[in-house]
């Protein structure tokens, strides 16, 4: 009887540790599934790189008329 109780305790401890490990993995994988909006827009280095890319693509394209004059 003592052996059965002992085995049951070990099984319980094992299943608990498996559960905890699995939970931990779930949490960390949720962290890994990052929000790219936030991670990019909070990163100046990335933003500089992207805005340079955009500026290069728009090179030569005027966005405002040079004929505008006077106060609005």
């Amino acid at each position, binding site marked *: 009887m003592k052996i059965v109780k002992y085995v049951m305790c070990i099984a319980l401890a094992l299943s608990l540790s498996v559960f905890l490990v699995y939970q931990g993995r779930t949490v960390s994988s949720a962290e890994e599934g990052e*929000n790219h909006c936030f991670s990019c*827009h909070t990163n100046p280095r990335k933003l500089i790189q992207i805005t340079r890319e955009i500026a290069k693509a728009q090179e030569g394209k005027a966005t405002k*008329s040079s004929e505008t004059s*006077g106060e*609005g």
Partner: protein
Amino acid sequence: MAPHERIFVDSEFAEDENHGALSCEECHGGNPDDPNWKTAHEGVVKDPSYPDPSETCGACHDDIAENYQHNLHVTLGPYEKVINKRTTPVKAAHAKVDAAMEIHCSSCHSSCGQCHVSRPNAVGGGLLEGHLIMKRAPMQLVCTACHGSRIEKEYFGKNEGIPPDVHKQKYFKCNKCHTAEEMHGDGKEYANRYEVENRPRCTDCHKDIYGMDAENAKTHWVHKDQVSCQVCHSMPYKNCYSCHVGKDKQGLPYYKTKGSEINFKVGLNPLQSEDRPERFVTLRHVPVDPGTFDYYMKDALGNFDALPTWKLTTPHNIRRKTPQNSTCDACHGNEALFLREVDVKPEYKKANKDVVVPPDLIPGKRGG
């Protein structure tokens, strides 16, 4: 602002107890799971509070959002009304002018986001403080970024030789007088900003000017309901002329004004009412011209003379002592202060007939 600064989000935003729990795509759309910034931005809405904030800001701030569709900063309703009034009363003219206004005028609006999160698009946009929600819109990045040519230069004393507004010297920001309630609107559709019921009035603070013990009580009583406060207390201000709009060879919209001048003119009150009974007010020339929309249609403003081009104004360069209030005769009998027929350009004479001061109405010298 450097290009990257305009879209930089301060990570502190996530700690904002009221807004930080919202994920980006809840307001802006797009795909936060997509690591490719180009495809991730498909469907992104830059300003989710315009033109309808009810699903975003309005989901919590419903009491403010319910007045949004009549808010003058959003609708620019008065602009549309006055241009409509001047437009030739035929369908084709209204269609052309409406289309031109859509291109040249309608972009100059604001929204919840374009005061509290970013600079207005009309002045180039760019996030304020890394998307942290600003309860009070910063004066120079938001308010005077749009109201720059006239208000900013007057208030900060940037017009050469003219000191700043006395309230600026007391460190007043715009919101000291222009409250959030006024800015957010009250749901009523006003014809112009001077009708707004909760607009600031000088007497909101200067309650005692008519009191027995007030230093200039007699002067204030004598002029009460005869002249607006600005007639005695504002300094010369900017007047603009002849705005023409069109598109250049590349199809980009432009505007051209024929210069501006610093001047001070007292005229007859074009908006005289029980609430605004003064006979004399300060008038400012606005840049509208019979040919403003000539590029789109000749003579589109066939009813140009329906409204004056010298409009009621409340300049933001108030001083206790001004040239015109230094003595009685600095104003009385000083014809140059008043808008006379000779001051009005020939093409604008008919439009301004009701605001020009006839010689017999210019107050005579008092000998003091």
